[in-house]
């Protein structure tokens, strides 16, 4: 932000004749005038025939780091041009500033950090090594989690049930409104889009089958998982990442607690317990969305729509959706916590691991759902 007051406000007047001249400086030799001062001093030191220069600073109202820098540039250039420079009328304030700022004593700049060698190929190699290390980290974390889970199964009291209840509320209860709204609208949109086509064939009633099967088998679990990854997976990564940055995790470790058992397990267990319920809720709301279109747009009866839906769905479809939820919850919760534990540095690192948790979470959901689809096609 530049203010009028911050504009350069100085004068540099070269007086006298011949080799010895006086440069009268007045006004404020400050940071706002530095560029102009340097340019002006360059002009003065290149004056033909100049052998000595007396710089009169008695009218200088203020000198700051920028002014000192410009004066130092003047002295350097004068030395190169073999012009002798003497300062006179230096005020106490200006002298104080000159005592503390030493332009000629600056240490050399350190070399910039080198980029990885090899350009594009090198970057691919580096990326590959990082990916392998990352996968190894994830596998190791999963192993640690299973060990912790084994301990909890042997001694259920070792799980922090109070924390688990809190996370169940955060993941489940607090997530109900957004999961419900999105699912309802999705059911509504799906019913509406399919109704346009099915109406042409007089197959209005099959809208109920389409909405129910698509939502319960595929879209309900996927949509819920994506929402939970965005809401809770990211929160897990950010919470644990902040704890790492603030050395809280190290504190836990030296107090004899196992951080994955203490921090990750309650979150993952809570998510595993809540996800199937959220998916069922999502299915129900999506079917309600379809019902609204069926009744208002396709002139179906509520009873007819519900009967058609119940006929289309098998219990195994609902159970499969819930089972998917368990697996997705393990992936989202696990990757959220794992990414949190990898935070290193400050606030920036927390942001990075949070983004990474959401991206990796959604990626894993889609990969896992593809595997489900193949298994379902060939084996079920």
């Amino acid at each position, binding site marked *: 932000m530049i203010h009028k007051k911050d504009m350069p406000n100085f004068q540099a007047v070269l007086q006298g004749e011949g080799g010895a001249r006086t440069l009268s400086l007045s006004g404020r030799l400050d940071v*706002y005038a530095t560029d102009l001062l340097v340019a002006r001093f360059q002009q003065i030191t290149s004056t033909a025939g100049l052998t000595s220069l007396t710089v009169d600073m008695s009218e200088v109202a203020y000198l*700051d780091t*920028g002014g000192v820098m410009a004066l130092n540039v003047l002295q350097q250039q004068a030395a190169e041009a073999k012009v002798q420079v003497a300062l006179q009328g230096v005020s106490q304030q200006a002298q104080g500033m000159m005592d503390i700022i030493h332009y000629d004593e600056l240490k050399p700049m350190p070399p910039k950090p080198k980029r990885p060698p090899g350009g594009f190929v090198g970057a691919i190699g580096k990326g590959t090594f990082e990916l392998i290390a990352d996968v190894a980290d994830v596998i190791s974390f999963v192993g640690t989690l299973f060990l912790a889970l084994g301990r909890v199964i042997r001694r259920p009291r070792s799980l922090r049930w109070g924390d688990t209840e809190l996370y169940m509320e955060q993941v489940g209860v607090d997530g109900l409104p957004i999961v419900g709204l999105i699912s309802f609208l999705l059911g509504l949109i799906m019913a509406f889009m399919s109704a346009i086509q099915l109406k042409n064939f007089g197959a209005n009633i099959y809208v109920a089958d389409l909405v129910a099967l698509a939502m319960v088998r595929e879209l309900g679990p996927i949509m819920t998982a994506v929402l939970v990854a965005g809401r809770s997976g990211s929160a897990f990564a950010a919470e644990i990442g902040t704890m790492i940055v603030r050395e809280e995790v190290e504190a836990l470790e030296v107090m004899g607690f196992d951080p994955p058992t203490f921090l990750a397990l309650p979150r993952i267990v809570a998510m595993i317990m809540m996800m199937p319920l959220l998916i069922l809720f999502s299915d129900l709301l999506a079917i309600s969305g379809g019902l609204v279109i069926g009744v208002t747009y396709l002139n179906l009866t509520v009873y007819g729509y519900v009967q058609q839906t119940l006929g289309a769905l098998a219990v195994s479809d609902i159970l499969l959706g819930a089972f998917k939820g368990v697996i997705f919850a393990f992936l989202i919760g696990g990757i959220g916590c794992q990414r949190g534990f990898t935070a290193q540095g400050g606030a920036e690192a927390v942001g990075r691991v949070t983004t990474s948790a959401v991206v990796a979470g959604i990626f894993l959901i889609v990969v896992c759902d593809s595997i489900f689809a193949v298994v379902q096609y060939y084996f079920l």
Partner: protein
Amino acid sequence: MEPVVTQTEPAMVQTPAAPVVKPIVVKDLTLGYGREPILTDVNLEVEPGEIVVIAGGSGCGKSTLLKGLVGLLAPIKGRVWLEGLEVTSADEKVLSQVRRKIGVAFQGGALFGSMTLAENVDLALADTARLSKAVRQVLVRLKLAVVDLDGYEEYYPSEISGGMQKRAGLARAMALDPTILFFDEPSAGLDPITSAELDQTILKINHALGTTMVVVTHELNSIYTIAHRVIMLDKSDKGIIAVGPPSDLRDKSTDPRVSNFFHRRPRN
């Protein structure tokens, strides 16, 4: 020969001599969070070039007062002027003018982790002054040299020690050569040598530049080294209980709270 006047420089603006104003004036300041006041009716004046230490036990409102002085905390009541400009006014223009006259060195340095030390110091310069990049680069290095950090321009805050971070925070606070510098717990968490070095840097800047300084600390060694005047706050009084040079407060104060503080004596 006629005097040569450069064409590039602007004509000097003649401003009337400003009346001498005290760098810091605080009147009937009541500060708190929500409705609960932590400090009530604080009155204070600081002379140019003075180093004032705000001292007191934990929770007495030292940092709250500092926040009130620099305009980070709106007062419940009262007014604050820095260099004649009212910090407590709601005028954004005035506030922005005030903020370019002051520098604040935060407890942990408060450096931006995603920027190098040079970029941290350059931030205010780039925003405020119309300067070429080359000139700014030299200015940044000069600022870092004042706190003995030249050579560390390209380092990130996470790559340097806590003491260096505090010094870099000071360099950033000094980027625009402020007339008033505020320090929040400069010695906290530092080893005695680094702490003494930071005290020397503070004194060096004060002697050379005549910068007015307000330092929040409860480190007695630092107080004796740097303070011209100590303002002692107390939780129970919610305000100032003693003002004076540190040696006077230590040797002459009859208030047991003051004397206990300066002699490191437990309350009971």
